Every structure is written in structure tokens, then in C-alpha cells.
């Protein structure tokens, strides 16, 4: 297992700069989430990691060495735009991609059978891929990307276009790969899935890194917190209003009082003041979600 490091990579296409300056590190066996709006440079960054594109500037290293063809064969890739040989049968297709990554025959077929079983593709094994539904084709692609037990698996929008059942199958497959020690890099617009799967994140916008770190680190850098207080009485509202830097938020569905307060405001002291002013049935300090952090990082209001 190795560590992937991107050091100030940049890449332009003619007059268009897709990636301006991106640095990140993926520790062995961890899962790294790449977030950003459309056109932020996520796919270009992934393509540079895989050697599909050569950076104009900066370096991509694996265990301190440049990523060459030999190293790249130990990586796996699930691109955003899915593609398969339509006429090739499912089993042959998966085995072929295994061979491309150095899995010799007959091990390629044995592993292909195992993945077909694992993803519930048994009845389609001898059918051409073009005859499969989109969801099942996506499963075939996952098998193609992971058959060789890659040290690093790069997944570009792996959940897009999947129905909830197939999304769950993919989620479990990725968890299983995590348990096996595979490092994962994935991009997704499904924040809850990323939050659930990833150990660290990087928010890219306009080709640059806007925020990066573990969720705890990202939260630590968040300037405010939200507190919710029940019941919504005038006495309690006055205490919250009197808190320095506090700002009222639209009340949640429960009807509780909701205020944004500075992150360094002492929650225990605030609770003591609230209890002193009246009966408090609920006091909750809400941590910012990944979505909040993402929206703030790319410059949108949270």
C-alpha cells in the first residue's frame, strides 16, 4: 500500500485552465472524497492521477515516486462516462480487464466468476454487455475496475444513474474494498454517501483547492455553530439574542429556536444562562454538515 501525493498540479486545454493548483495526499487504506461543482476540475485531477493526462506543472507521486505504467496497473478506475464493449460477453469483458492489469489466465476467469457472483450478475455472465440494463452494466464496470484488487481505486461519480438498490450494492462493495485495505478516491454529488464513506475530503472549485482535511478538521475551521433550543419562549430567545455574534435562523420544522453562534462561544456557559432564564427541554449544538462546508467553500451561502 502506498501514499498518493499531488503536489501543485495544473493542467490547461488551450486557453481553458481546468486545474490551476491542486495539492492533496491520500494515505494508504483511506477513502478520499473529491467535491466540487461541475467543471471544477475533479475529473481532470483524477485523469492526472491515472496518467491519462500529463500535468502541465506539478507532480503526481505514489510512495514518493512518479506514477509510471507499472504503478498505474495497480490502480483501478471507474470513469464517470461508463463504457463497455457491447458485443463482448460479461465474463469475457471482466476477465479481459483483469488481464490488462496483469492477472494471468486462468486466474482472470476465476476472479471474474467471483465478481459476477458477488454482484449478482450470474444470469448475465454469458450475455453480451449491450443486452444488460444500465445498472447491471455499471456493476460490470465496477468488476472491471476492481478485479485486480487495486491498491488505489479512483471512482468518478460512482453513484450517478444508479437506482437505490444498485447504489446500496455499490456502497457495500466499496465498504468491502475499504476493509480489504484499498485506498479509494471518489467524487460524488451525493454528500451523505461521501460523508458516510470518506475519511478525508478536498473541495475543488475553479481548479484550486478551497478546503481539505478530515471532517473533524473541516468542522474545526468552520467559524460558527448552530444551536437549537426548546421551547421557543421569549425568555430563552432574549438570552440567545444577547449572546455576542449570535444570529437568528429560520426556525426548523419542530418550531425550536435556531441561532447561529460563533464557533468559540462556550456551549456550557450558554446553556447555564438559558437554564437561568427559564425551563429548557432541549439544547442541541449542531455541527456543520459536509454540505454546509462544501457550499461555503465554493462560495455559496450555506
Amino acid at each position, binding site marked *: 500500500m502506498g501514499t498518493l501525493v499531488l503536489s501543485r498540479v495544473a493542467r490547461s486545454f488551450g486557453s481553458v485552465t481546468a486545474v490551476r493548483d491542486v495539492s492533496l495526499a491520500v494515505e494508504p487504506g483511506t477513502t478520499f472524497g473529491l467535491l466540487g461543482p461541475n467543471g471544477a476540475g475533479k475529473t481532470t485531477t483524477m485523469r492526472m492521477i491515472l496518467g491519462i493526462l500529463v500535468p502541465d506543472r506539478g507532480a503526481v507521486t505514489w510512495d514518493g515516486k512518479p506514477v509510471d505504467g507499472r504503478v498505474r496497473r495497480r490502480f483501478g*478506475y471507474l470513469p464517470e462516462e461508463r463504457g463497455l*464493449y457491447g458485443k463482448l460477453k460479461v465474463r469475457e469483458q471482466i476477465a479481459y480487464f483483469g488481464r490488462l492489469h496483469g492477472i494471468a489466465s486462468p486466474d482472470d476467469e476465476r476472479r471474474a466468476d467471483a465478481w459476477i457472483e458477488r454482484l449478482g450478475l450470474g444470469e448475465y455472465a454469458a450475455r453480451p454487455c449491450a443486452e444488460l440494463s444500465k445498472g447491471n452494466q455499471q456493476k460490470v464496470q465496477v468488476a472491471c*475496475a476492481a478485479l485486480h484488487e487495486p491498491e488505489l481505486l479512483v471512482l468518478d461519480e460512482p453513484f450517478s444513474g444508479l437506482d437505490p438498490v444498485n447504489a446500496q450494492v455499490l456502497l457495500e462493495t466499496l465498504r468491502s474494498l475499504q476493509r480489504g485495505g484499498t485506498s479509494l478516491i471518489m467524487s460524488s454529488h451525493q454528500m451523505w454517501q461521501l460523508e458516510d464513506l470518506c475519511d478525508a475530503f478536498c473541495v475543488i472549485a475553479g481548479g484550486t483547492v478551497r478546503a481539505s482535511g478530515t471532517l473533524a478538521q473541516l468542522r474545526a475551521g468552520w467559524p460558527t455553530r448552530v444551536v437549537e433550543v426548546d421551547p421557543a419562549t421569549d425568555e430563552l430567545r432574549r438570552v440567545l439574542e444577547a449572546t455576542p455574534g449570535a444570529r437568528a435562523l429560520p426556525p426548523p420544522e419542530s418550531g425550536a429556536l435556531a441561532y447561529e453562534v460563533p464557533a468559540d462561544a462556550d456551549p456550557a456557559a450558554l446553556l447555564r444562562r438559558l437554564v437561568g432564564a427559564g425551563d429548557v427541554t432541549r439544547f442541541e449544538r449542531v455541527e456543520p454538515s459536509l454540505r454546509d462546508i462544501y457550499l461555503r467553500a465554493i462560495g455559496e451561502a450555506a
Partner: protein
Amino acid sequence: MNVMAVVFGAEFVRRLTSRPFIFATLIGALGIVAIAVLPRMLGNIGGDTRRVVLAGDPALTATARSLLARDFDVTDVVRTLPAQPTTAFLDAHGKAAAAALLARDAGGLRVTAYARDPSEFRSAFARDLSPLQVALATGVPVAAVREHLTVPVDVRGVGGPFADESSAVAAKGIAYLFVFLLYLAILLNAQSIMSSVAEEKTSRIAELLVASVDPSLLLAAKILASAATGFIQLGVWILVGVLSGNAVTTMFSHGGPSAGAAMNAIGPLSVPPGEILAFIAFFLIGFVQYSVLYAAAASLINRTEDLGSVAMPLVFPVVVGFILAQLALENPHASNVVAFSEIPLLAPFVMFTRIAVSSVPAWQVVLAIVVNVAAAALFAWGAGRVYRVGLLLYGRPPSFRQVLATLRG
């Protein structure tokens, strides 16, 4: 396992079992059979147009009948013709294509022919009956005139590879067939590579492939696999050519030159090894030159429907090369033919033809090989760059300037 061997093996099997390859091989084989058999079959069908009915003095018609037997089938001989013979008259006399009235006048023999197709007959009649004309004018017996009119000509080759006329004619036949096969094999297989690249791009599998395999290796493996299947295809066609040549010679054994006879000459013993080597060398050179260009062009399209428009400019030099090869068959040492035989994309057709039908100075062959191998390498380099970028380009096709910028890096 070597990744290039993996791609080669997969491409080879995929291509060999693909319907377009099987169809192209079968249709090519049928075309070769047609080239071998049709001229002779059509020759037989043409028998209807050679039927004539003769009229005139029996002394003249008897001699004329024997002289015309060379080119015509005399269906009937009558004393006179109607003033204006009709088709009914021709039908009644063995469904003849023409009626000819023979008469003597002060100038000797005069022939008046009434033919369904007046454009036929004149030259063949004049040639066949010329001994009778001379006999009538000089009083020398027809048999003696015929004998004197036949001049024994023995043509010996000088300064070329052929000892006599028949070997030169056979060499031209073989060269023509080989150039035709070269044309078919290069065109079909280069277009097959084009389809394969287009399929990988439009099905979006290209990105997955280039994440695992270096695009240059991918392209090289594709071209090698296509060359291998191309050789198999050529082998099938040459075998079919030899077999159909033999069959034609057996079926139509009553003489006369034919494409079948030329094909019959193609055998491991009758084709000089140097010519086979030249064929293999120029097939490979031409194949690489065209394949890389076709692959690069295919990598730029976004829809398979665009294949035709991209392929069109690349078909042009193949067709020009094939046409120039026809010129080279007749004038292998003409200065323009010599120049064309050195030019990339054209040389595989023209230089091979020159080698097959003449003695080409060694320096010209070496120069053609050096120039064309260098051109193939240059094309492969440029095409590799375009292919690497083109495979991942979606949306609007790149402009010519963008392609040039890609080549410059």
C-alpha cells in the same frame, strides 16, 4: 503478462470473428473468383454476336468461311441477300448477328455487311478476309498468302527481368492481381481499425482503456492485430485466386489468354521470392501508414455516423495509388511513375508494381523503403499524439488548427 500481448490477442480474436471481417473476406474471395471466371464466361456469352450468314459466289464464300472461322461462327451460306435484310432474315439463318454479301469488283473483294450492331464486324472482317483480298489481287493461292502473312516474331527480353513475352505478360497479370489485393487489404483493414477506434471512443470505453494501457501501446497492438488478420485475409484470397485459376483453366481449356491463366501462374514456384518479399514489405509499410492515419482520424469523431466524412480524404490516396499502379504496369520507368514510386502513401502500390514488372535500380528501391519507413514512423508519431488526445475529446470536433497544435505538443 505483457499488456501489449493481451490487447493484441483480444483485438485479433475480436477482429477475426467480427462480421465485417468475415463478410469482407468472403466478398473479396467472390470478387477474385469473378475476376477469374467472368471474362471467360462473358467470352462464351459473346458467341451470339459472332454468328454471321454469308452470301455470294460459292467460290468466294467457301474460302471466306474457312478464313472467318478464326473469329466468327458462320451459321449459313446463301447465294444472295434480300435488298435490305431484316432481323427476321437473320433469325431464320441461325439467329445470326450479321449477314455479309461478298462480291468481286475491280479492286478485288468487296464486302457489304448488314449487322444488328453496326459498330461490330468491320475490323475483324477486314483482318480475317485480307488473305482472300491479296489472293484475288495477285493470283497467289489463299493458303500461300495466309502462310506469308504470318510473320514469325520471337520477342526476347532485354535489360529486364523477363526472358520472353509470355513471362512478361504473366508477370503483369500477377502484379495486377497483387496490387488489387494490396488495395483491398489496405483499404478494408485500415477502415476496420478506424471502426474499432470509433467504437471504443463512442462507447466511452477508451478512457477506461487508456487508464490501463499506454495509448501508443494500445494503437500499436491494434495495428499489429489488424496486420495479422490482414495477412490471413490475403492468404485466403491468394488461395482462392490460385484455385479459381486452376478451375478456369480446366473448365475453359480451349485456349486463349485470360485472367484465370494469369492467376494460374501464381504459385509458390512461379512467383519470384523477391516479388513476394516486396509484396510483404510494401503491404506492411502501406498498412502502417494508412492504419495510423485512419486511427487518428477516428479518434477525433464523436459519432459513428461521422466516420464516412472523416474516411473520405483518406480513401483518396489509396485510390490514386491504385490508379497510378495501373500506369506503372505499362510504363514502369516513366519519370513521373518513378517519382510517384518514392512518395509515401503511393509508393506501396507504385513501387511494388514497378518491382513486379521491371528491373528497378536498387537505389530507387532502397530510397523508397527508407523514405516510406520514415514516413510511417512520422505518421505513427503524429497519429499517436492525435489519438492520445482525440480519444478523450468529446463535444465539438477539434478544428484543423487544434489538431496541428496537438501535433506540436
